[in-house]
């Protein structure tokens, strides 16, 4: 709405209310003051709600209807004018506000009437209001209502007849009672058949309709009788003021929308990352207050919601509306069409859902990538191990074998020349010695590349061999004799090997203990010593031998820990997952 139209609407509303006070005369009896002040208060509330509704729902007729009720509430004040035309119009207009109120109630919450029957009911409301009013005016002499000669004339008066006037009033009251009952029943039915957001929007209207409907019935019936002043004051002075509940309806709906907006924000913040779509839908539905909300994804056979129901976004069921979500995944929200009155709420919900789904998708992607990286790291280490095994075997089958043969050949050559050519014999002996040393070095090199004993005998034999070669006194407290996958054996072996090497090099320990325990789902390797301790645990993170070892253990999916208080020895523990 433009600023100009808004200013115009406000000016009109203010002018109408001010006009009331200009023309309306304060009542002579002070107890009627409530009616004199209550009428413009109710009207002003409707006018304000009308402007607010226009701003809030520019495309809906609700703003118009609220305003209409407001203006029609003020219109009868024209009869205060000391003028026959104003007096006539003011008196004829009295029932119009009630008809507009019924129209508003039936059109809530979208502003549109739902069926031809309901349009008929509303038409009947206006027709009865205008028709009976005009008809009654034909017979109404203002003197019937205690008006003296100072009253302006009823311009419509054809033939003053109290009997005819009473008859028209009775018929009007009867028609009003029927129409009021129909309107209230229709409103209750709207509420009962509504689902989700619309049902919540309808709930306060039902109470308000029951109250205003009851008031209307009482007024219609009591209007036919001459009541004692107090009863008249209550039924015709106070009671009509309950129509102020109409604008309250607007306030409740505005608060609802604001609350839903806040709840959506909180729900999205509280939703745990990677929550399944079903949980996302439940959270959104709860926050929004639309229990019918559906979150549907495109699959091979079209869209399916989180409960497994097929959904056709192109042709939603009656009373349902669809909003597409953005993001890599094709998804829609299907919601109660009543929510279309709150487009910002729909947009907010869609944005929240899109964001949550995108978040979940990205998280799943990162998780999948992490799994791939983990698997490829394990494969790289395994491939490295396999390559080292192959290298060791190649050395064994090739160079070592040839050096052995060479050693034998030199030995034979030496025995051939023994005692014949001492110089040559010495030369060959020296060559043989060199060959043997080369063989020893090559054997150590091969063992460093990959311990054949691990392949041959598994952890039990390999750890035994490590212990035998260690310069420190090492006790094996436990080691499983069974075989494990090569990667696991190699990882456990390198933990023990590196730990014993560190013990020998740095720990200044007298004894050390090695244990490898088979636990459910894992292999627990532990090497402890009684040395100086004080190994910096943070070295695990830096480029030391321990860091390399930690990487190696991590590549098998395990964890390496160092516990090394100064002066109290060092304990290195590795937990390696093991099927």
């Amino acid at each position, binding site marked *: 709405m433009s600023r100009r139209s808004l200013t115009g609407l406000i000016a009109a509303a203010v002018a109408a209310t001010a006009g009331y006070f200009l023309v309306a005369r304060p009542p002579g009896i002070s107890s009627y003051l409530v009616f004199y002040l209550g009428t413009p208060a109710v009207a002003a509330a409707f006018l304000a709600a009308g402007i607010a509704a226009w701003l809030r729902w520019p495309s809906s007729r609700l703003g118009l209807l609220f305003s209409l009720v407001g203006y029609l509430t003020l219109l009868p004040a024209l009869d205060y004018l000391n003028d026959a035309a104003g007096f006539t119009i003011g008196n004829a207009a009295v029932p119009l506000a009630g008809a507009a109120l019924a129209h508003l109630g039936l059109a809530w919450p979208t502003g549109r009437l739902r069926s031809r029957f309901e349009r008929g009911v509303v038409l009947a409301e206006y027709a009865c209001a205008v028709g009976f009013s005009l008809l009654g005016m034909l017979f109404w002499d203002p003197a019937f209502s205690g008006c003296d000669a100072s009253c302006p004339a009823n311009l419509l008066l054809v033939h003053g007849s109290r009997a005819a006037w009473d008859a028209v009033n009775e018929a009007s009251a009867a028609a009003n009672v029927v129409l009021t009952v129909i309107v209230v029943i229709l409103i209750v039915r709207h509420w009962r058949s509504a689902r989700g957001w619309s049902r919540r929007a309808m709930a306060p209207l039902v109470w308000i309709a029951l109250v205003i409907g009851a008031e209307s019935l009482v007024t219609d019936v009591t209007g036919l009788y001459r009541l004692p002043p107090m009863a008249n004051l209550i039924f015709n002075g106070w009671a009509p003021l309950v129509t102020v509940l109409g604008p309250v309806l607007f306030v409740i709906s505005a608060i609802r929308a604001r609350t839903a907006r806040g709840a959506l924000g909180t729900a999205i913040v509280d939703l745990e990352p990677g929550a399944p779509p079903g949980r996302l839908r439940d959270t959104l539905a709860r926050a929004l207050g639309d229990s019918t909300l559906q979150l549907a994804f495109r699959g091979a056979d079209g869209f399916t919601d989180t409960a497994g129901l097929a959904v056709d976004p192109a042709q939603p069921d009656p009373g349902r509306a669809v909003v597409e979500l953005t993001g890599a995944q094709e998804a829609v929200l299907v919601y109660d069409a009543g929510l279309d009155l709150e487009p910002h709420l729909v947009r907010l919900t869609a944005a929240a859902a899109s964001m949550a789904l995108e978040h979940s998708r990205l998280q799943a992607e990162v998780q999948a990538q992490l799994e791939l990286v983990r698997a490829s790291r394990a494969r790289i280490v395994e491939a490295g191990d396999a390559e080292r095994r192959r290298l060791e075997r190649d050395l*064994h*089958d090739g160079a*070592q*074998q*040839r*050096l*052995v*043969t060479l*050693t*034998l*050949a030199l*030995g*034979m050559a030496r*025995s051939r020349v023994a005692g014949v050519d001492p110089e040559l014999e010495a030369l060959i002996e020296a060559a043989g010695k060199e*060959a*043997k040393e080369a*063989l020893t070095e090559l*054997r150590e090199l*091969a*063992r460093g590349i990959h*311990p*054949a*004993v691990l392949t*041959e*005998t598994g952890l*039990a*034999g*390999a750890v*035994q*061999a490590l212990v*035998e*070669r260690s310069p420190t006194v090492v006790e094996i407290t436990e080691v499983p004799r069974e075989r494990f996958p090569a990667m696991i054996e190699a990882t456990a072996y390198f933990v023990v090997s590196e730990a014993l090497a560190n013990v020998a090099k740095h720990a200044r320990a007298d004894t050390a203990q090695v244990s490898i325990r088979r636990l459910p789902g894992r292999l627990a390797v532990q090497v402890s010593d009684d040395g100086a301790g004080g190994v910096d645990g943070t070295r695990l993170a830096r480029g030391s031998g321990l860091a390399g070892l930690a990487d190696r253990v991590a590549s098998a999916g395990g964890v390496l820990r160092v516990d090394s208080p100064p002066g109290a020895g060092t304990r290195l523990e590795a937990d390696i997952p093991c099927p």
Partner: protein
Amino acid sequence: VQSAASILIVDDHDGFRTFARGMLEAAGFTVAEAATGAEAAETARSVRPGLVLLDIQLPDFDGFEVARRLAAQAEEAAQAGEAARAGGPVIVLTSTRDASDYGGRISSSPAAGFLPKDQLSGAALRRFLTPP
């Protein structure tokens, strides 16, 4: 007739067999050769060596398996009353690796012991034939 001085060299490496044969023949042994585990069992049955120098890494079975089969073969022969002597041949495992690379597997095999290939000599083998 089984001869204490007859040796069966089991190794898939031709060069090694050739030089080992030369060395052992020069040391006074009669030498037969086999290149695979299966061939070893066959040759042992016909030649009946007093000692089998058995490489651990063979193309078909490993040396431990061949040793087990040779021992089983000797047991069968003894039960069939063919026992011309007590027990089968003395089995000596050998490898370019050293004994520690095989952990406890050597001691738990029916072999009499292990001799690294580069330490092979007639004298070293004789020590296995005449235990102290």
